[in-house]
């Protein structure tokens, strides 16, 4: 996916004034925020599970190599072929190679953010292969030629009317008005693709080291069809998705759907282990698992390694007041919201995503709802520290911090400067005691007044009072 994160500020501005998007964002909040709260309330030891899961994910990341090798061994034992891709380009080349070697003409895909990350569809389609997204949201976006705006609900930014329009044009059928009919029509359209595909590509929510199993959770069941019907199943997943045991999965699945949409369990848990055995009637003849690094090992052992705990539930963005107002596309790459503000600079370079770590008030909601306790504000702050050290922020901003830093460390100078500043700003406030415009902070005054200072600082008033008391004694 092409990186647009450098345009965050401008895109966000457009999105704030996009009426369709704003309506969609408000609507989705009830499911994502209120729904999650209800889902979490069902579990009486939620905090204990979070703590356990965070430690579990830490243990995995600390021993990533060992668990991946164990996974590989067990996957191979069940007949799968495991491929290691260090970069996005390598991952694409591996998948394309598998397709070409097997004369694959058509591919069905279930939802996978990693394949968005590496822009796999572009590679495959460019080589003349027909690729069908089968997750309803992804299918809508494929018709619209748009990128997902959310990691769990990719088409959350689109209205029912927009989807009706897309379906009418793509399916050459009368325009539908209700969601159940639209869904039925999409199912009818997808059915033949499911049955005819030469290869299925899925992502994985987790991969299990002890069994060599890859796991996908869906509410639509499309992953079941993608992984079992075609003769080749190819899993593309990030290396950090590995977990040690099935029991660990049982723990994490208590957190994932509840955090994502407040569901206690998803409709379909798709577990795929190896190829079709001689006595089995279903399953692929070939199973390929592509383990993608694409920047992840850069995080291992770094001060950002906590980010690798992420289980991609989307709760951080759903609760982020910035995301709630600008939506996912403003973030300009695959991962929106707080997790994107940490990951995007890592994967595409801080110079291409400089505003993202700054697009946060540090309100802390993301950290509170994260099922694996990722300290997202701290990680965004670390990016800000790097930006400050590397002088990557605009000159005016850096100069302002340095100037402020100079004064606050020198109490006498600071007292003088604030006395003058308080008086000048107070005068600027006029009778209403409101400053309507102030150069240098126009980001504030464009949409808000600045309540004017009283005119004298607390410390000078306090000093005068204390002196008067002394005299009185």
């Amino acid at each position, binding site marked *: 996916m092409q990186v647009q994160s450098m345009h965050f500020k401008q895109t966000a501005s457009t999105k704030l004034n996009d009426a369709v998007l704003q309506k969609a964002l408000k609507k989705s909040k009830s499911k994502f925020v209120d729904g999650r709260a209800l889902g979490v309330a069902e579990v009486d030891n939620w905090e204990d599970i979070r703590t356990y899961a965070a430690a579990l994910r830490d243990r995995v990341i600390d021993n990533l190599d060992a668990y991946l090798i164990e996974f590989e061994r067990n996957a191979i034992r069940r007949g799968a072929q495991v491929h290691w891709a260090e970069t996005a380009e390598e991952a694409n080349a591996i998948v394309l190679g598998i397709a070409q070697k097997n004369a694959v003409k058509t591919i069905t895909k279930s939802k996978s953010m990693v394949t968005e990350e590496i822009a796999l569809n572009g590679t495959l389609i460019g080589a003349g292969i027909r690729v069908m997204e089968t997750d309803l949201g992804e299918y809508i976006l494929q018709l619209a030629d748009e990128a997902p705006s959310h990691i769990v609900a990719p088409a959350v930014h689109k209205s029912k009317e927009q989807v009706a329009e897309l379906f009418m044009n793509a399916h050459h059928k009368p325009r539908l008005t209700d969601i159940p009919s639209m869904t039925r029509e999409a199912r009818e359209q997808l059915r033949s693709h499911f049955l005819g595909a030469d290869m299925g590509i899925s992502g994985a929510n987790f991969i299990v080291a002890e069994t060599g199993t890859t796991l996908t959770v869906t509410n639509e069941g499309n992953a079941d069809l993608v992984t079992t019907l075609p003769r080749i199943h190819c899993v593309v997943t990030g290396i950090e998705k590995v977990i040690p045991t099935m029991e660990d999965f049982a723990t994490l699945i208590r957190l994932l759907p509840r955090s994502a949409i407040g569901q206690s369990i998803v409709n379909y848990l798709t577990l795929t282990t190896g190829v079709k055995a001689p006595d089995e009637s279903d399953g692929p003849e070939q199973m390929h698992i592509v383990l993608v690094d694409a920047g992840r090992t850069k995080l291992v052992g770094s001060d950002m390694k906590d980010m690798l705990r992420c289980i991609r539930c989307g709760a951080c963005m759903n609760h982020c007041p910035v995301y709630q*107002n600008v939506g996912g596309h403003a973030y300009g790459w695959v991962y929106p919201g707080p997790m994107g503000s940490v990951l995007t600079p890592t994967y595409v370079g801080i110079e291409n995503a400089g505003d993202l770590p700054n697009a946060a008030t540090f*309100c802390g909601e993301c950290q509170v709802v994260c099922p694996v306790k990722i300290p997202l504000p701290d990680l965004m*702050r670390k990016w800000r520290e790097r930006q400050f050290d590397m002088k990557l922020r605009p000159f005016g901003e850096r100069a302002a911090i340095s100037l402020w830093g100079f004064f606050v460390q020198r109490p006498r100078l600071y007292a003088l400067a604030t006395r003058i500043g308080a008086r000048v700003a107070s005068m600027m406030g006029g009778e209403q005691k409101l400053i309507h415009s102030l150069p240098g902070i126009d980001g504030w005054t464009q949409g*808000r007044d*600045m*309540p004017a200072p009283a005119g004298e600082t*607390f410390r000078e008033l306090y000093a005068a009072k204390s002196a008067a008391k002394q005299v009185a004694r």
Partner: protein
Amino acid sequence: MKVGLFITCLVDLVRPNIGFAALKLLEDAGCEVIVPASQTCCGQPGYNSGARDIAKTLAKKVLAEFKDCDYVVAPSGSCSGQMKLHVVEDLFKGEPEEAEFRALAAKWYELSDFLVNVLKSEKLAGKFKGTVTYHDSCAGLRELGIKTQPRALLETSGCTLNEMQDAEKCCGFGGTFSIKLGEISTRMAENKCVNIGVAGADAVVGGDLGCLLNIEGRLRRNGDMKTKVYHFAEVVAGMTE
């Protein structure tokens, strides 16, 4: 009981009345209040802008100014979060000064927390008889668990609380965020103002001046000159005029 009053840079510069209200509340409860004249800022603006070294220097300055007090009290959840949490859990973690900062953090209180849980103040001078709606500031709420304390104080001093929807949602201030990403910040403030309007209170009250300036700035720009905006200290100390 020797209580150091950390004024906060915003209160010092913009609204000294909040500082005097805090002073009155502490003195009314019998505290001997110390106000070090050299105090400037806790360092959070630097810390959150990536200027870690400046933040550390300022934290040390605060430590030197307040280490002899029995308690330190600040009329801000944000500055208190900086000194109680970030300084010990991040800036000086594993460094020789950590123990001293932990000792400071242990005796550092946000004002409402101190009044309710340490002083157990029950007689308050407040005489504001209108309805108020309370905005929970993020750092106080999520870093320090400040939620019931200011409400208890407001009710003790005779206010009627009209809770707004999404009282815990960020108002969009976020320090330098409010300037760097002003348009998004303004929208967040607008959402807050809509909820304040629906709650229909005479005053919106909070515990952090940054949020209050942001909220007031948007209310006034919208032409609402009527809804008062107060720090809870002003209300419960009877210093709203």
